[in-house]
């Protein structure tokens, strides 16, 4: 619709006065003012650009750089953990973890994110809900390790889902199936309490530190120094590129130092497998407890097993609530290192030390004998032998071999609690071994003083026979028993057990001037245990093995009967060393709450010792072969062979 071009009224109104053409003249000077104003405004604007872009260009250049160039840490990998032969036990691998930045999170994005990353939407939404009360800057971890397809999804949707953040990390790669889990330990984010302690002074919130085992004990050694690189970030802090190219760094990171353990992976594997093997004889499929193997001459721990175990890699991936609950609530305590934390009565494995105390204190001599009728009344208490029929006349050798309780009740009572405690103390019972692992337990060696101090009561002589057979208040850890046995086996030199070869100086062993004749008698007795006694299952062809079985009651039989149990549950123990005359290896095995006697623990020790001597023989044979080859090579006539053939002995 076209309206009439000119309003007739307007026309007449306007034509009343001077012609239209002249009518705008009144404004000419004001339009000129407007033009000057326009010039002034444009000059004002241009002067603004002049000041910013020409006069202060450098200043704003610098501010622009400060905006977009940020220093970013390059995470230093933790040191690796190797076995005594340099084989890798714990390694690292670089990985990316995926987080949701809750500051930029839009909840309507969740379905698309869940779909793209193949996550459960309900689960993801629940996680976001749970985090609601937390401060916004807490990021929500949604995937601990991303796959290449995840990365592709995240990169291609960077602008649509700015809440997806990839964070580079160095992840620990641990052995499978819980092997060595208790020795290695695990890492985790530093806690508030740790941040406050001086040991962790150089750490910052968010750092990963060792939380258990070697990872904790040698945290400072294993921790590297983070490096730095410069990156270009956008306004949301997302990295767009690395200054100077993908691999350019400002300060390279220093990896943590490697640790060489004293553990021998060959022995460790054998010990782990032996511990896991079912015992068909007793219909036992699962054994809880510990194995410790060490070299008594140095204190180097060759193998250490604790059962049940747990999967370290679960920790390395950020442990799930369900798995944590599963292992934390387990009544068999998978997180406990039984080798250093299980404090149990040693039972008959203590008898060699009872014998030592009795002989060294002069309470009895090696010809002393008793007649066992299945029990004996001492201090008004009738003490039973484990063999109700009795052992007849027994002396040190037969008493040890048959583990006759009556014999040890008697010599223990003759020696008295003070001597038992004195020599037990020398052997290290009731003291930390000082092994390089956190959370070691010290056990308990009862004595008159201990009872007075803790119970305000006098020691009754009637309590001594129980201690003499490793019961009563006496409790030990498997590592304590291994150390004590090792020191005894080499004539009274107790080395500090340790797990790491390459850090620290050799320790000062505890030496005690034992009567070597007495030691010899005890060793003879322990050899008898293997060759004709309760420990026959630990026999090894060609090697003289000494040992001692132990079956320690956890509940009294009366108690078990009152509870309606058929038999009380016992701890089965076995300690062994070999060769008897010049010991190189000590093994202690503990089956906790086991339905059989100590003899069933003997095969585990035998397997570990066999692995040790087999390996030794194999290495010796290799060495022999090498020597003979070298000798043959040297005997060859000195021919002028071409260089290329020189390296190849025919």
């Amino acid at each position: 619709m076209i309206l009439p071009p000119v309003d007739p009224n307007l026309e007449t109104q306007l034509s009343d006065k001077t012609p239209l053409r002249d009518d705008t003249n009144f404004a000419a000077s004001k339009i000129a003012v407007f033009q000057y104003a326009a010039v002034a405004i444009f000059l004002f604007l241009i002067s603004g650009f002049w000041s910013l872009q020409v006069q202060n260009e450098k200043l704003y250049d610098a501010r622009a750089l400060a905006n977009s160039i940020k220093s970013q840490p390059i995470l230093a990998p933790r040191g690796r953990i190797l076995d005594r032969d340099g084989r890798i036990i714990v390694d690292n691998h670089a990985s990316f973890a995926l987080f949701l930045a809750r500051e930029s999170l839009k909840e309507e994005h969740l379905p698309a994110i869940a779909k793209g990353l193949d996550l459960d939407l309900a689960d993801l939404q629940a996680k976001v809900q749970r985090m609601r009360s937390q401060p916004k800057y807490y990021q929500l971890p949604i995937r601990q390790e991303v796959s290449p397809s995840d990365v592709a999804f995240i990169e291609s949707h960077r602008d649509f889902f700015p809440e997806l953040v990839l964070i580079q990390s160095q992840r620990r790669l641990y052995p499978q199936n819980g092997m060595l889990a208790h020795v290695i330990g695990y890492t985790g984010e530093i806690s508030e309490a740790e941040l406050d302690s001086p040991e962790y002074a150089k750490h910052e919130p968010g750092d990963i530190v060792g939380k258990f085992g070697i990872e904790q004990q040698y945290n400072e050694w294993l921790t590297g120094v983070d490096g730095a690189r410069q990156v270009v970030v956008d306004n949301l802090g997302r990295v767009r590129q690395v200054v100077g190219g993908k691999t350019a760094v400002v300060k390279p990171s220093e990896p943590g130092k490697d640790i060489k353990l004293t553990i021998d992976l060959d022995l460790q594997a054998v010990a782990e497998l032996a511990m896991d093997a079912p015992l068909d004889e007793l219909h036992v499929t699962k054994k809880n407890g510990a194995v410790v193997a060490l070299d008594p001459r140095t204190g180097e721990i060759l193998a250490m097993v604790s059962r049940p175990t747990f999967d370290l890699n679960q920790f390395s991936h950020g442990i799930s609530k369900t798995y944590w609950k599963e292992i934390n609530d387990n009544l068999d305590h998978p997180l406990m290192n039984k080798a250093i934390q299980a404090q149990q009565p040693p039972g008959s494995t203590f008898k060699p030390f009872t014998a030592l105390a009795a002989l060294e204190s002069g309470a009895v001599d090696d010809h002393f004998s008793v007649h066992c009728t299945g029990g004996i009344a001492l201090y008004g208490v009738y003490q039973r032998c484990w063999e109700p029929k009795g052992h007849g006349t027994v002396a040190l050798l037969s008493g040890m071999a048959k583990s006759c309780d009556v014999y040890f009740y008697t010599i223990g009572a003759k020696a008295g609690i003070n001597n038992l405690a004195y020599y037990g103390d020398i052997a290290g019972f009731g003291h930390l071994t000082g092994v390089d692992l956190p959370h070691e337990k010290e056990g308990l060696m009862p004595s008159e003083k201990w009872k007075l101090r803790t119970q305000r009561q006098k020691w009754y002589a009637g309590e001594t026979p129980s201690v003499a057979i490793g019961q009563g208040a006496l409790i030990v850890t498997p590592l304590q028993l291994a150390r004590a046995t090792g020191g005894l086996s080499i004539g009274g030199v107790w080395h500090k057990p340790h797990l790491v070869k390459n850090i620290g100086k050799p320790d000062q062993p505890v030496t005690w001037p034992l009567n070597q004749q007495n030691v010899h008698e005890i060793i003879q007795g322990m050899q008898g245990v293997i060759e004709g006694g309760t420990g026959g299952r630990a026999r090894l062809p060609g090697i003289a093995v000494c040992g001692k079985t132990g079956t320690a009651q956890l509940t009294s039989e009366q108690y078990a009967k009152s509870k309606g149990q058929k038999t009380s549950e016992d701890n089965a123990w076995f300690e062994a060393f070999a060769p008897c005359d010049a010991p190189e290896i000590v093994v202690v095995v503990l089956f906790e709450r086991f339905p059989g006697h100590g003899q069933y623990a003997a095969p585990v020790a035998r397997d570990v010792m066999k692995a040790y001597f087999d390996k030794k023989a194999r290495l010796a044979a290799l060495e022999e072969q090498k020597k003979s080859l070298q000798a043959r090579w040297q005997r060859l006539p000195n021919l002028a062979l071409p260089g290329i053939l020189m390296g190849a002995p025919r």
Partner: protein
Amino acid sequence: MSKYLSPRDMDLVLIVIVLLICGVGVLQIYSATLDTGFHSAWWKQIFYVAGGLVLMWGAVRIDYHSLMHSVPMMYIASVVMLLVTAVVGAQIFGSKRWIPLPGGIHLQVSEFVKLVVILLVARYLTDLKTDELEIWEMARLAALVVVPAALVLLQPDLGTALTYMAVLVTGAFLAGLRWKYVAMIAIVALVALPVGFHFLKDYQKARLVSFMDPDRDPQGSGYQLIQSQIAVGNGGMFGKGVTKGTQTQLRFLPVPHTDFIFSAFAEEHGFVGVVVVLSLYFVMIMRIVQNAQAAPDRAGMYICMGVAGLLLFHMLVNVGMVVGRMPVTGIPLPFMSAGGSSIWSNFLALGLVNNVRLRRFVN
């Protein structure tokens, strides 16, 4: 039909300059939205410019005298539309400025009301036929303009409301203001300022405060001003090059394709580019003023000068903000900022100027 209208008689120099500015705008929108969710903005802008040319021709066809005749109707329609916006408006970035239309288009009514205000001022002053405004005449005109301006201010959109006042001031200045009235208005304004400040929204207060002292709260309301100055300064003499401006591309610069498009342009093209484009704008405004001078009657002159005043005010406020010499008000840069409403309203204004030009030899 008294006269045959030909597009060739339009102010082709003016149109070529405006199209050059639009071209720079499209290029800058392309660069500033690279790798973002807004990347379709550059071709949409081409579509808006093409549509703007058609609208401009439409605005040329209707004789501006007939437009003047229907000013009361347009004025009432504008006020109604602004009220409708207040009721059904889409809330974006915390203010209700847009009416959602089918097809995903959001119409910003206040942009088009600018044209009505220009026509209103022209009609009112033409009817008065005076060389010196009386104070009550001035007050009546101001009251008429304040109604839509207040509605826009409540959206809240201070920047656009101020553009209406700019048109009013331009018109009143041309109609003739006595010095004593100017002085009186100035005194009243000075007294009203603190009172007015009290009625501003919190974010508007914060913007004013941070304009005075941007480094006081660099992460908060001063952020936009500081980032804009950094981007401009970072451009230096010759600029970082298209798509190479770090502040723009890393998005430190806020809304680099709309209100802060000139910061992005300054970063990527430097002082040299800035002088070239500001010169284009300057010539554009001067051409419009020339058309006002050549206008056959007061109505035409007031229309052209209203457009010139409006565009000059936009330049001052938007570009002044970019260099940190004006507070952040959030009005677009004419013909460059991405957005259909702004482009179309500006082309319609250009149509009004040409409308006057084509009728300069009438009678």
